[in-house]
């Protein structure tokens, strides 16, 4: 692999609520502009609904809601980052995502003790790129389904109680 050979890894950089995050490009299937999201009944608050992408139906997770920020309307710069972790495909809704960069492994530091509490578990590491602080996300934690269900209240009130599992 390219990353292993020259000691660097490639990342997709995205912006969320004024903070710069990075996800490993290896885990990214593709990126899309959001055209239509179909809401689903009794979904958790952070799950906007489902989207149709390359012949598959995948859930769209609003990362702002997931991280406890306020929801903003979708615009030209809003992006859906489709990731594959394990056998699961999930679309992450972010404010914007315009960069593909490679970061030296030496530039990545483990998360600081101060932020390694509750929020620290989503952070795999912290890198400095062109004088910008970039938080590298641990996607397996981000899309932890149990936590999504527990941490969120249902976003939509359906006619039936939720059936989870």
């Amino acid at each position: 692999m390219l990353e292993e050979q020259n000691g660097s890894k490639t990342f997709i950089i995205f912006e969320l609520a004024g903070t710069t995050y990075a996800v490993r490009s290896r885990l990214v299937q593709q990126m899309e502009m959001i055209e239509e999201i179909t809401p689903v009944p009794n979904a958790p608050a952070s799950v906007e609904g489902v989207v149709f992408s390359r012949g598959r139906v995948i859930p769209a997770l609003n990362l702002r809601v997931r991280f406890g920020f306020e929801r903003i309307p979708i615009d030209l710069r809003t992006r859906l980052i489709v990731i594959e972790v394990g056998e699961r495909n999930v679309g992450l809704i972010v404010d914007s995502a315009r960069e593909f960069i490679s970061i030296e492994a030496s530039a990545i530091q483990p998360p600081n003790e101060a932020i390694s509490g509750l929020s620290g578990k989503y952070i795999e590491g912290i890198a400095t790129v062109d004088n910008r602080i970039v938080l590298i996300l641990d996607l397996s934690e981000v899309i932890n389904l149990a936590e999504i269900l527990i941490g969120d209240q249902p976003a939509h009130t359906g006619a039936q109680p939720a059936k989870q599992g």
Partner: protein
Amino acid sequence: MAAPALDIRNGRSSSVEKVREQAEEVTRAAVEISNIAGDVGRGAEEQAASIEKALGSAGAMSSSLKDTATQAESVATSAEELVSSINEIAASVEQVSANSVSLAQSVTQTSSAIKLAGSSIQNVVGKAQEMSTSAQQVTASMSEIISSIKSVSSETDALTSSANETAAAIEEMSRSIEAIASNADDLSAAADETASSVNEMAASIEEVAAMSENLASSVDELSSSMEQMARSVRAVAQNAEKITEAAAGATTTAEQMDRSIRSVASLAKQADQTTGRVARDAEEGGAAVQKSIQGLGRVRDSMAQSATVIREMGKRANEIGGIIDTINLIAERTNLLSLNASIEAARAGDAGRGFAVVAEEIRNLADRSARATSDIATIIKGLQEVAYEAVTSSNDGLRIADESSRLGEDGLSGLKKILAGVEETSRVTGQIARATDEQLAAAQLVVGAIGTTAVQAKQVSTAMAEQTTSVQSIVQATGQMRRIAQETAKAMNEQGRAARELIKTAQNTTSISAQVRRASMEQAQAAKEITEAAEAMRRGAASTSRSLVEQATAGNQISTEATRLANIVSSVSKAMAEQTVAADQISAASEDMRRQSDQVAKAMTEQAGALRDMMGAVKDVSRQIGSITRANREHLNASASFSGVLADVRQVTERNVRGARETLRVAGGLTEQARTLNAIMDGAAGNGFAGKKARKKKKSKR
């Protein structure tokens, strides 16, 4: 109690003892009963005695109650009688009251009748007094008549004698009168002659007088007309002087007017020139205003054009914005594509390295175009704002241009009005100039005319002064003439008057002499008649004297009668006065009577009321007596039953007494038996111990 055996003596002894004790107790009880029975007997006897007493007093009470009832009944009867008699009294009192009321009324009537009588008596008295007075007056006038008759009588005597004397004198006079009559005839003839000559003289004097009066009046007329002329000449002279002064003043004024007219004329010319300049300026201003209005119109048009252009530009800028959006979208999509390409290239490893570079460059281009479109968007936004502001300000400019145009038109119309005013002013000033020129000419004529007037007035004044002098001398001359004529006329008048008086005197003389003659003849005739009359008078006087004496005698008698009448009237009057006083007293007394009868009536009424009250009270008394009677009867019944009960009680008490005596007797027997028993017991016991004991006990009991 047979003789006891020794073996049983002890046993018997104890039972005997017991019996003895019982016997003693019986004895004691019997004694007590006896005592009690004694007490009962005594009490019963006392009770019987007191019952006897009670019975006695009950009987007494009963009898007294009976008496009381009887008395009450008689009282009731008498009360009823009293009521009926009171009723009778009340009826009679009411009658009395009614009678007294009618008495009061009749007294009142009497009183008023008495008053009437009193007033008529007073009238009679007044009349009697008047009569008395007139009788006295009659007496007095009769006295006077008598005295005058007496004096007439005496004078008649004197008259008779003097009539005789007169007759004699008249006869003498008659003779001398006849002489006078002949002289009067002579005098009359002479007087006739004098009268005719005096008449002639008077006629000539009157002619002269008339002529001199005519002369005086014509002199007067002349004099007054001369004076009038003198006054008018003086007035003319004064007027001429005034005219001269006024002419001088008018000259001065005319000169002043001339000067002022000249200055007005020059001012009018100046005004005309100024007006002409103002008119020119106004016309120029009007032209300028019209030009500026046209310029404003052009400005407005170009403003509108530029506003349209700017709006068009804004629209174009909007279109550019739409295009920029499209470009942005393309840039975003390009960026997305390059990212996906990079992802795929990374997955391809070394094989994708070149592809990754290309993707990188595409991403950079896309970013640049995005930045450029962002810049353009900013610029377009600024441009749109500027265009909006330009449209707004050009709209403002349009509005201001419109307003300015309107204001310019207002100014133009104002200037036109000014022009019209200026033309009017010019015309008026031209008229003023012409008028002042005419005035100037007229004023010069006026000055000349005034100068001529002044000269002529001076000449008139001089002439009038000369006329005044000559007229004054004429006036003086005529004044002298008038005085002379007046004096002449006066003298002639006096002469005429004297002549007239002379004529009158002559005429008088003639007529007097005729009268004298006539009178003398009449006197003569009269003297004869007087003589005859004197004779008749003498005769009549004698008879008058006689009858007067008779009259005097009758008058004396009348006087005496009148005096008597007066006395009688006086006494009547006095009696009437007394009657009046009596009537007044009667009136007062009847008034008192009326008052008293009123009081009596009132008192009767009160008595009637009191009687009614009394009757009510007596009825109450009667009723109470009835109730007392009833109560008495009940008391009587009660005391009768009480007596019955007492008798029963007495019987019971007597039985008690008998019972008590019986009891006493029985108790005495019982006591005796008990003592006997005790003695037996003592004997039966036979032994000292028990016996002693028993004796001791007996002793102690006793």
